[in-house]
């Protein structure tokens, strides 16, 4: 239990801060997330995803649920910082090296997406903006933003699976 917290607290805290507006909200969120991790650990399958991915999936799910419960009233970031996000890589702290290895395929896949797909996915996934906010920031129509997100996610999944040699093992999207 404690090792799980020690190992993944930085990761979960980093994600929580992107989706919450106050430290108090982030604290509540991380407790919810870790509880869900402990409760869901029986579903972990190392042949499908690494530990960090498993925990990040749960964290994102809980954080998005919280935003929806709060009526999406929280705006996660004041201003987009699109210059830094393209260069950013994984955390170099406790599990940085492991993450680097686990997500090199994701980084490579991301680099192969179109510029527009990268841009909207950065704003959505990295910074936590809603699709409507991304439309406002980029000037793209909302439908275009959604299309880029959808196609970008699907394309990234395909590339990641090709890189890992697991293409065709997924249920079709």
């Amino acid at each position: 239990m404690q090792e799980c917290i020690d190992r993944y607290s930085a990761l979960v805290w980093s994600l929580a801060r992107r989706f919450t507006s106050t430290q108090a909200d982030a604290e509540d969120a991380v407790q919810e997330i870790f509880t869900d991790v402990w409760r869901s650990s029986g579903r972990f399958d190392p042949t499908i995803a690494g530990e960090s991915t498993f925990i990040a999936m749960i964290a994102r799910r809980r954080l998005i649920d919280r935003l929806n419960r709060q009526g999406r009233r929280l705006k996660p970031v004041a201003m987009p910082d699109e210059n830094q996000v393209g260069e950013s890589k994984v955390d170099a702290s406790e599990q940085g090296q492991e993450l680097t290895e686990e997500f090199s395929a994701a980084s490579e896949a991301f680099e192969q997406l179109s510029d527009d797909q990268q841009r909207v996915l950065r704003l959505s996934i990295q910074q936590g903006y809603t699709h409507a906010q991304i439309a406002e920031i980029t000037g793209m129509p909302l439908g275009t933003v959604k299309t880029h997100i959808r196609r970008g996610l699907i394309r990234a999944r395909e590339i990641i699976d090709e890189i890992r040699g697991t293409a065709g093992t997924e249920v079709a999207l």
Partner: protein
Amino acid sequence: MSQSPTPDRDRMLDLLADQVTEGLDAAERKQLDALLATEGEADLEALERTAAELSLALGEPPSQQADAMPAEVRERLSKAGREWAAGASSGAPGASSGGDGVLARIGGATGLAWFSAAAAIAIALLGWLMLFTVITQPEERFPAYADIETRPDAVRVAWSPGPDPLGEGVTGEVLWSDSAQAGWMVFRDLPPLDPNQNDYQLWIFDPTRDEHPVDGGVFNVRPDETGEVRVPIRAKLPVRSPTLFAITVEQPGGVVVSKQDRVPLVAPVEG
């Protein structure tokens, strides 16, 4: 991922992408369920996994990670974990793995004993979560003005009128603590805005972050609020070294990117 596109299938995939990036409302969820029934199975978890992997691959660079989990939060989490593990083991005699089993499972061990006790654990969890929810409402736990005021790193800056005449005659101050990552705005004689037309929004300028100010929250003043008004500061990102607090007038609900056309009040931090 290569089935023929149709309007319904495109819509289904849009909704799936929405679900993993910002969630669905009840109507959207109902629509997705209907489309899944007619369009066939789709692997939601594959998209969730993709979003998670990209999220980590695009994580904040070390220079932006000054917000490591605070020690007190970590301690509370550890305590909750110990309570969780104790509740799990006492409520489920067969689950000999208890909390350690959870970690063992994450680490790749079988952990099936833990899974077999899931029902008993869930009951304990539900009670714990209900208790926790009552105790930890964010609004209730927002640091009091006096708590922030007594912190060694608390800064207090008086409001000055900005270019917009709306700030003329307004007095008050900003109280902020980097260690608390929280603060309060105090206003006297701040004019209420028609909430159908405008809200106030706070921006915090922190050059150690980047060139863009941090959103400090959207607020308004009720017409019946006379005298002193106190508004909590809810920074959307960690603030390390604020140099300026500025109030803008924005559309109802605030904006993501302020044009800063109307700036009634500013509070520059000296030093």
